[in-house]
């Protein structure tokens, strides 16, 4: 079974909307969804600040579908990823790399869909949820 690292943009958007690709990912049985404690902390912080109280309950329900990697952020790796991607996304790129999953799913196309990121994560591939869903359904 392929493993997929879920980043904050996907987890937040799945919490925010039950009808998009991010939410659909959580219904697929062919993949194992994985995330890190940093992603959970970041997403929850933003759910509490930007969304309605009922979204928080949905967030906790979605998290039950995730395997949580107990990894500690690697400061040396983050310093390296800052050279590869916009500084604001460096932590997530490092976390995805540490997870050693087959895929990283993100909705941040602008910063994650670059040759530098693809080369850094190789063989891990970066996809948006829609791409992953289409790939699985082929």
């Amino acid at each position: 079974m392929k493993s997929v690292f879920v980043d904050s943009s996907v987890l937040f958007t799945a919490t925010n909307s039950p009808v998009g690709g991010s939410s659909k990912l959580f219904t697929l049985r062919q993949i194992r969804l994985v995330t890190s404690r940093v992603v959970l902390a970041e997403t929850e912080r933003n759910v509490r600040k930007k969304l309605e109280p009922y979204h928080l309950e949905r967030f906790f329900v979605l998290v039950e579908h995730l395997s949580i990697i107990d990894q500690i952020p690697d400061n040396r790796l983050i310093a390296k990823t800052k050279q590869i991607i916009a500084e604001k996304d460096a932590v997530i790129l490092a976390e995805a790399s540490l997870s050693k999953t087959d895929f990283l799913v993100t909705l941040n196309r602008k910063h994650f869909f670059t040759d530098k990121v693809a080369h850094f994560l190789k063989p891990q591939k970066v996809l948006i949820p829609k791409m992953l869903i289409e790939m699985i359904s082929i």
Partner: protein
Amino acid sequence: MKVDAANIIPITKARSKLGDLAEKVADDSYIVLTKDGSPKAALVDISYLTKLENEVNRLYKKTFIDPKLLPYSREFTNQEIQEWKRQDSL
């Protein structure tokens, strides 16, 4: 939650029959009081309100927010939240 048209009452009309209305609310049925046509307040069964408060407290106690990890996190902008929603459409 149960609220139908009969349970939406202008404050001006509610004033004279507050005692009757208080008897009417039970469990998750409540009365919405309006002012100038907009919802202003609600008359709620006290046990239901307590239940809601307890549920919210329970929910807010549960957390993945670890103070040691917060420096590694950031606040999303409204612009990127909208962009993600757009990218998420199937």
